[in-house]
């Protein structure tokens, strides 16, 4: 049984995760035209991998998880680099062009990033609705005995 504060914490973590997804999408969009990086390679698109997570680090939480009776939070497992090849554009005058005259642009599709951004914002909104639902429930419960 979760307390109201645990449920708030759960929704809050989910909001933080969605913020990270938006940060990564914004980094991808910002670097869509980048042709050089510190390690000399082309800029690789980043992707956020999510993982379920224990809500609390207590023994009771682990026990509940072992019994399959726990409510699981979410966390960012890793920020993975996309292995797709770069987008090669023929532009011999570009300072970063190779000997064959091709420039390696990042493997970022702007439309795909925009769609990711929209799904991220929808998830964020859904979790905000969870929060307002929780607050509403708690406030209604406080009204018990006052004629509701």
């Amino acid at each position, binding site marked *: 049984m979760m307390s*109201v504060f645990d449920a708030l914490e759960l929704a*809050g973590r989910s909001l933080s995760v969605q913020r990270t997804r938006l940060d990564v999408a914004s980094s991808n969009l910002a670097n869509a035209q980048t042709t050089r990086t510190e390690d000399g390679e082309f800029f690789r698109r980043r992707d956020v991998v999510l993982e379920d997570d224990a809500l609390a680090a207590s023994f009771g939480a682990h026990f509940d998880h072992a*019994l399959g009776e726990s409510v699981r939070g979410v966390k960012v497992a890793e920020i993975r680099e996309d292995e797709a090849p770069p987008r090669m554009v023929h532009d011999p005058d570009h300072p970063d062009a190779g000997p064959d005259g091709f420039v390696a642009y990042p493997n970022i599709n702007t439309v795909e990033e925009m769609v990711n951004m929209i799904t991220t914002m929808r998830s964020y909104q859904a979790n905000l609705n969870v929060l307002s639902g929780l607050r509403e429930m708690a*406030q209604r419960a*406080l009204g018990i005995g006052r004629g509701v």
Partner: protein
Amino acid sequence: MRINEQIGTQPFIEPKPYAPKATARSGDFQQVIDSVRSTMQAADGKASDAMVGRGSIHTAMIAMTKADLGFRFLTQVRGKAVDAYRQLMNLQF
């Protein structure tokens, strides 16, 4: 294995008459007040962090919601206690 199923197989326990051993002391309520105060202080810290751009807005709002709910519950409990006290004071003999 589910805990609830295990409980269901327990032999029936005879109900005992209600015998309160210890009553709540004023120190217990003081502890609750202190913990509500600490959630409010945490909310203050997170709010000022968010205002200068150090923390995220939702973290601050959630901390403030926690403090708000805790304080509302505290005032409800205080109201009930004061109500009970008034009822006793109005007893006529």
